[in-house]
């Protein structure tokens, strides 16, 4: 298509050293700022290396002891559960609303007007600084904040509800903010997938008298499966990285009683306390999990191309 297949052509060969030259900035910067840190993170995970008061312990090589200590401690499991629960709270409504909106936007018989306006609005929260958004929610949902005063004024609540002091409401707030920040993005991804479905399939189904519900479940969903899996797994990877929102909302404490503490908040704590061994081991575990999930994405997207 682009006429670029000129492998044997000697005329072109002399230009090809430019491939290396143009690639050099990426390779150099990537090696220094990503690859070396990547390797040294793994390296650090095998050493005992932390501060205890003013005393520096280590670095002593202790092989897998950090991993053993980390996995034997109940904390990591608790934080994994927290992270997963808050991800689910955000993801389920996100996927439901996104599917609904995307199927409406792409439905030619509905002819929804003002699509650009709606897309602009639903994508907006994605660009907001998560730290500022979390701070905003913290002030709005504070015990004496506007949401409580609104609910009390309207007579819905007799007295202010302590959103930040109850596990359920604190987790729901985090999940809800994740939902708000990501459903617009998901809608646009799913919509792009739906627009890619061959319209003749829909026409054939309509001729056969299929209802819109049947069309959605029998045509849209199966055709959308690759994008759907992509959205699911990338969202899960994003969920593993959940940090800004719960960190700011709870001031890094995961209040109440560390039930909103995520894995990256835990990592951040170790990094600030300069516990290199433990943060190394935690990083490597997160890396492996992310790697497995990414591989799943890769498998699905490459399969998609073979269609």
């Amino acid at each position, binding site marked *: 298509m682009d006429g670029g297949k000129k492998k044997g052509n000697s005329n072109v060969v002399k230009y090809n050293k430019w491939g290396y030259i143009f690639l050099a900035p990426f390779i150099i910067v990537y090696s220094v700022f990503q690859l070396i840190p990547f390797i040294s*993170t793994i390296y650090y995970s095998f050493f005992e290396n932390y501060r205890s008061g003013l005393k520096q312990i280590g670095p002593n090589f202790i092989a897998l002891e950090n991993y053993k200590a980390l996995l034997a401690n109940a904390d990591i499991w608790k934080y994994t559960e927290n992270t997963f629960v808050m991800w689910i709270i955000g993801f389920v409504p996100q996927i439901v609303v996104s599917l609904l909106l995307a199927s409406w936007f792409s439905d030619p018989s509905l002819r929804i007007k003002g699509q650009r306006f709606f897309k602009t609005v639903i994508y907006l929260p994605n660009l907001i600084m998560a730290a500022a958004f979390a701070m905003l929610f913290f002030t709005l949902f504070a015990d004496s904040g506007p949401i409580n005063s609104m609910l009390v004024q309207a007579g819905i609540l007799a007295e202010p509800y302590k959103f930040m002091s109850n596990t359920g409401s604190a987790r729901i707030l985090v999940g809800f903010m994740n939902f708000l920040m990501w459903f617009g993005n998901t809608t646009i991804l799913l919509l792009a997938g739906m627009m890619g479905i061959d319209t003749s399939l829909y026409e054939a189904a309509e001729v056969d008298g299929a209802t819109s519900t049947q069309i959605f479940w029998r045509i849209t969903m199966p055709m959308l499966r690759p994008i759907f899996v992509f959205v699911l797994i990338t969202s899960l990877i994003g969920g593993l990285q959940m940090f800004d929102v719960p960190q700011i909302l709870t001031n890094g404490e995961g209040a109440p009683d560390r039930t909103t503490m995520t894995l990256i908040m835990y990592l951040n704590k170790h990094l600030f306390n300069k516990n290199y061994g433990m943060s190394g081991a935690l990083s490597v575990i997160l890396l492996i999990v992310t790697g497995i999930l990414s591989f799943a994405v890769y498998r699905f997207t490459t399969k998609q191309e073979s269609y």
Partner: protein
Amino acid sequence: MDNRRLKSGVSVTTRRVIAYIVLALVTVLCLFWFYILFINATRSHSDLTRGFTLIPGGNAVANWISLMHSSQPVISGLKNSLIIAISAAVLSTYFSTMTAYAIHAYEFKIKNAMFTFILAVMMIPTQVVALGFINLMGRMKLMDTFIPLIVPAIAAPATFFYMKQYMESTLPMALLEAARIDGSGEFRTFNSIVLPLMKPAIAVQAIFSFVASWNNYFTPALVLTTDKKKTLPILIAQLRSADFLKFDMGQVYMMIAFSIFPVIIVYLILSKNIVGGVSVGAVKG
């Protein structure tokens, strides 16, 4: 056109009405928070403690002035955020286009291996290599400088991938060969022919890089320690960790508004490109 057939009892009109009602609710759900933020940023502390109203107050200027004179270095925070985000956006788009061009336009030995490598590392989260990153920056004496927050933008796998996809659809090799015949050097061809052709993609990615860098909290919080060098997200976090109930709430809201509204305004101006850009990446991704 309006004689659309009934589908299992639910007419198109009914479905359309339901769709518009839900869309209206979703719109309110998205904008409500920013509306309250706007209202509260214009009200005084004593107003705010008295309860909530839907009408803006008259205290915006006073809140602004008190924010400018507060203990928080907001102006330097804004300046630092801008310097870092703009530099990162420029470096990221320029060099990602260059990397994509290297893979797209030339045939060389490690080409396919490099392409696979970049795709493979695309998903690695920055947080999980933070330990090694912070240590290395410490050894290179780069802690508490902007360099660790700007220079890594040169190697941005996701931006590279977008540029590569865009290039495949817009950059004919014949054009580059014509440039060669006209005696244009490879570097000049890249700067004066490839870059202008890539402008739409560069614009989209520049916005995304800018926003990502502007909103970034994790890495800057680990790197920057001097008050005067801190970026806005770090200042927000400091505001949260201070005993903030003693603060002037009008000023607190003004500070949040100060970090959020600039991005909203830029977004509204450029929304067409941004929303389009998301789905272009999606189809290919």
